[in-house]
């Protein structure tokens, strides 16, 4: 019985990934535009660092390289993190926009399967798109990653997946609560994460209240941990506290976000919000 249920849910899980793959393929032109946009954004940040010397700031060639790497790693990671966050956070908005929200929500599938299926598709797509940008960067910049510890970077990257899913699922609740304003609110959350998570600067430069909020953001630990690994060769043992914090945040955020999502779904059913027009 449990085996049958698990098989059923696994089949649906594959269905969500397959559906997203088909949607990415069918909307390939849009995806190509977004890829180009991301690439251009990351390149701009890289050239911003390169251009610092022309502004009269002459910190020395080595420091300039470090600054460029610091910013590029931040920009590349932000591309990935924001893409995955956006894809999960807009799972409901997208269904409403396509007009399929009712069909998906009346399907005999656990909501956890639905959300994890969407998340898995976002992660796979996010990694592929970010890898493509990363490869392009090698051709544009003379990157010195001789000190990088790739294993540590990968371990932190993997540990960051859980809290990232939690944040995405939390934000995907917004369009359930408010069909009209939820989408814009998700953009606002994304903007706040960009400000407080140390994407382009260490969070120590933020005013005290924002600094405190930054400490609570899992993206802060992801960014600083991956940076330390790639720029200064942080060892796996040295990264364990960061990995531990990220996993702990994930263990709290994922179940909490799924629980909140279920509560929001109950509310949406009571108010009749589970429909395409909102």
């Amino acid at each position, binding site marked *: 019985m449990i085996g049958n249920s698990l098989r059923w849910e696994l089949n649906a899980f594959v269905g*969500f990934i397959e559906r997203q793959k088909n949607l990415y393929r069918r909307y390939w032109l849009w995806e190509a535009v977004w890829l180009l946009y991301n690439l251009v954004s990351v390149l701009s940040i890289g050239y911003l660092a390169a251009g610092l010397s022309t502004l009269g700031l002459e910190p020395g060639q080595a420091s300039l390289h470090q600054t460029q790497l610091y910013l590029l790693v931040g920009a590349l990671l932000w591309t990935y993190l924001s893409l995955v966050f956006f894809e999960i956070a807009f799972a409901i908005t997208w269904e409403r926009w396509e*007009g399929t929200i009712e069909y998906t929500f*009346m399907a005999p599938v656990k909501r956890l399967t639905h959300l994890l299926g969407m998340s898995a598709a976002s992660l796979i797509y996010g990694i592929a798109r970010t890898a493509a940008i990363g490869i392009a960067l090698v051709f544009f910049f003379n990157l010195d990653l001789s000190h990088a510890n790739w294993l540590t970077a990968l371990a932190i990257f993997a540990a960051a997946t859980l809290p990232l899913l939690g944040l995405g699922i939390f934000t995907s609740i917004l369009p359930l609560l408010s069909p009209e304003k939820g989408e814009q609110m998700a953009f606002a959350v994304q903007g706040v994460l960009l400000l407080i998570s140390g994407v382009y600067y260490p969070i120590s430069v933020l005013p005290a209240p924002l600094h405190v909020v930054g400490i609570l953001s899992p993206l802060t630990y992801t960014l600083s941990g991956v940076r330390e690994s790639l720029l200064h060769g942080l060892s796996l043992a040295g990264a364990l506290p960061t990995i531990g914090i990220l996993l702990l945040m994930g263990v709290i955020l994922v179940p909490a976000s799924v629980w909140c999502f279920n509560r929001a779904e109950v509310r949406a059913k009571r108010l009749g919000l*589970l429909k395409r027009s909102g």
Partner: protein
Amino acid sequence: MAIKASELNTAAVELHGITKRFGQPARRPFGRGKVKKEKLALDQVSMHVDSGRITGILGANGSGKSTLIRILATLMTPDAGTASVFGYDVVTQPDDVRRHINRVSVEASFFKEMSPWENMLYAARLYGSGGKGTRARVEGMLERLGLPLDTLDKPMKQLSRGQQQKVAIARSFLTSPSLLLMDEPTTGLDPRSKREVQELVRTIRRDRAATVLLCTHDLEEAEVLCDHVLVLDQGRVLAEGTPAELIRAHAGDVDGSLEDAFMKLTGKRLEEDEEAKDE
């Protein structure tokens, strides 16, 4: 999903005192902000639908038909009363209800950029299949519905509305529902597509022993398709019976029609309602 032996003797749908209100006035600080006007969508609705029959729900716009369908589809919870599908409560056992139902709505709910095949494969996955042999099943179904096979891999948005509705019906067949909820499946279709969809509804019952709950504006459609009809107006069931019984009891003429009975009961003509909606 096939009906279990234990479910055969159970009513397909059972409703007791279902009430649903929208726009309930919320308490707001200092009485500020907009307070929505309350609307009673369903008012103490009770009904019983036998398995294996086509039951029609007739009503004008705003009569509560779609709210009723959405409650049975587990997309909405009632404020009061109980609703069950094959004995499973729609509020407390939604997973069990969902395994027995599917829905064809007035607007086909598809990913418009995806093809019929991709949409149907997605549906199959959600309903426990989708492995080997699914493509052949889908092709067989579409052929039976008179859809050319070259439409199978085109984006849905390139299909006509009639074709989309046929794909919606084929998708519901694919999941083998015991209860098919059809919310105005022929509204807006050209006469030929409409006839074809109506023929399909007959086939569903004949071939699959499925129960169909059909919400419709079209009284002729109800008269020829339905075994049992309920007239819903302003959230209340005004009358129910076979089309012949309703005509006999309410049309006021032996040669009367279901439309005459409907007018007598509600004081409305559904055509007027449709015209008002179009305007």
